């Protein structure tokens, strides 16, 4: 099986964020990480490779520094890595990102499965997976909580999708586009893996390599506009500590407060 896993480099989720007057977001010296949802996708892809053989190729579209994220995925066990980078890609929204990713996946040739994260922890959109599925014309299996079975001969997959009211069990032909929920415990990079990643020369594919014209990518091609980013109004919550002689007294005072707040 040839599995392609798509990752994004994001700021660490514990980072304190600031926005300057021009709307530029910064996270100080907090580290950049692999989007946590994508780690589940990497782990699951590696497990499939271990079961069925084949290889895992990891891709990201991003700045040169995103090579670090690719190297982490290689250190975990991915076989190949490619960075999609071109100044013209900057400002691409979810649909345009999907267009670029789809072009790269087509260029890879035979692919059985594309694994992504449920959403990115910076953009929080969950829009690239459905848009990519449409660009490739492959079935979308989003919000996957479990892979039940894969039949490589029949080229089918059965997954459990986590929706609001429960799990929907779906069978689909391959190739398909999957997005991962928290479905496993991602492994740590191995020592051998880290060495391999450190030596790896990661190829860079540009718009021209993907056969995309400049006007098909980047901010100009994108329909989503972001005129302003701002920090939410700070809600100063002063915690009132409820004290009492006994749990019963504490409960009584607490219920009084909650009634007054009209939240019961």
């Amino acid at each position, binding site marked *: 099986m040839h599995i392609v896993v798509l990752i994004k480099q994001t700021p660490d*989720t514990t980072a304190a964020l600031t926005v300057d007057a021009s709307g530029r977001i910064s996270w100080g010296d907090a580290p950049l990480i692999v989007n*946590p949802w994508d780690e589940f996708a990497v782990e699951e892809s590696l497990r499939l490779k271990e079961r069925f053989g084949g290889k895992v190729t990891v891709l990201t579209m991003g700045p040169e520094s995103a090579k670090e994220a690719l190297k982490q995925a290689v250190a975990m066990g991915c076989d190949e890595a490619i960075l999609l980078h071109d100044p013209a890609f900057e400002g691409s929204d*979810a649909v345009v990102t999907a267009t670029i990713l789809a072009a790269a996946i087509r260029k890879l040739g035979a692919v059985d499965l594309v694994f992504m994260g449920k959403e990115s922890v910076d953009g929080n959109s969950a829009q690239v997976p459905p848009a990519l599925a449409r660009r490739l014309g492959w079935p979308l299996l989003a919000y996957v909580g479990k892979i039940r079975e894969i039949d490589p001969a029949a080229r089918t997959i059965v997954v459990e999708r986590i929706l609001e009211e*429960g799990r929907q069990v779906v*069978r689909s032909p391959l190739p398909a586009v999957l997005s991962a*929920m928290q479905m496993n415990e991602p492994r740590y990079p191995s020592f051998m893996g880290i060495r391999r990643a450190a030596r790896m020369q990661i190829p860079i594919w540009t718009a021209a390599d993907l056969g995309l014209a400049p006007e098909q990518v980047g901010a100009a091609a994108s329909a989503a506009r972001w*005129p302003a980013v701002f920090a939410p109004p700070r809600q100063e919550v002063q915690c009132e500590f409820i004290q009492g002689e006994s749990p019963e007294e504490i409960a009584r005072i607490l219920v009084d407060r909650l009634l007054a707040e009209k*939240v019961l």
Partner: protein
Amino acid sequence: MSGVWIWLEQSQGKIPSIAWEAMGVARRLADALGDGVTAVLLGEGVAAAAEEAIAMGADVVQVVEHPALADFRFEPYLSVLARLARAGQPQAFLMGSTARGRELAGGLAAELGTAALVDAMEVSVEDGRILVVRPIYEGKLFARTYVDRSPAILTIRGRAFPKPEPDPGRRGEIQQVSVELDPSAFPTEVLEWIREAEGEVNLSEARIVVGGGRGVGGPEGFAPLRELARALGAALGATRAVVDAGWIPYKYQVGQTGKTISPDLYIACGISGAIQHLSGLRGVKVIVAINKDPEAPIFRVARYGVVGDLFQIVPALTAELRRRGLAKE
């Protein structure tokens, strides 16, 4: 290019509250733009909800019934919505910010060559343009956004907007729309559903959530929390620590890699308040924290705090609610 459209999500013929909340937003947008609301209802045997949609604010309801639409599947649903949108040329297309809503939004944006703004928490019209404020970076920042083309696709965050009051006197038009769908074009197949336990309150729709963390000590430790949740008519939530420990299933997990919740009241029991847990709390009105450790970070976001043993406080709280006749059962 005209009209505000909404996809009326249904599951087994039932419309979730979030879809009506989106209807309220659609109505307000349409009024601001001097336009009408068209609701699109897809499924099989779902026409009964069309009357309700008019009472809730729709001017036109397009009902599309087909065996291929019996259960939600991305491809056939998207195919129908895209076709209707190409024919009707709406200015905006709204849906609830559910798993299905977000999938369809992204699919529609790709099909129609436009963009989707998900999780809208404020929606307004300025100079004829629809502006959306949405959370990014797990709610640590907000972005003011709009779509430069038509339709603007929006998913509406749950419990961020009021559900409209039904007006049985409203008039509207129900259109039965027939579509050709070639089943072989949609090869995915729904094999079965594993539904949430009957009678359990849905976490994302809950008005009150009782959350449990590692402080509950083990799987049995959830018993007093379950009892409090029952008394409050609340949903049960949990941290990743207890889900990873196998004390409670993943569907209860709240946080960055779990569910996002927006209840009026969140009672956090034995939860330290890690940032990844807190990022699942969006727009919660009141947080109550019960924790042994007065230094626990959860107290920094809580409105009320109790420093103490949850196994004493939680049962006392349940008993107090019962004593005052405030318990739901």
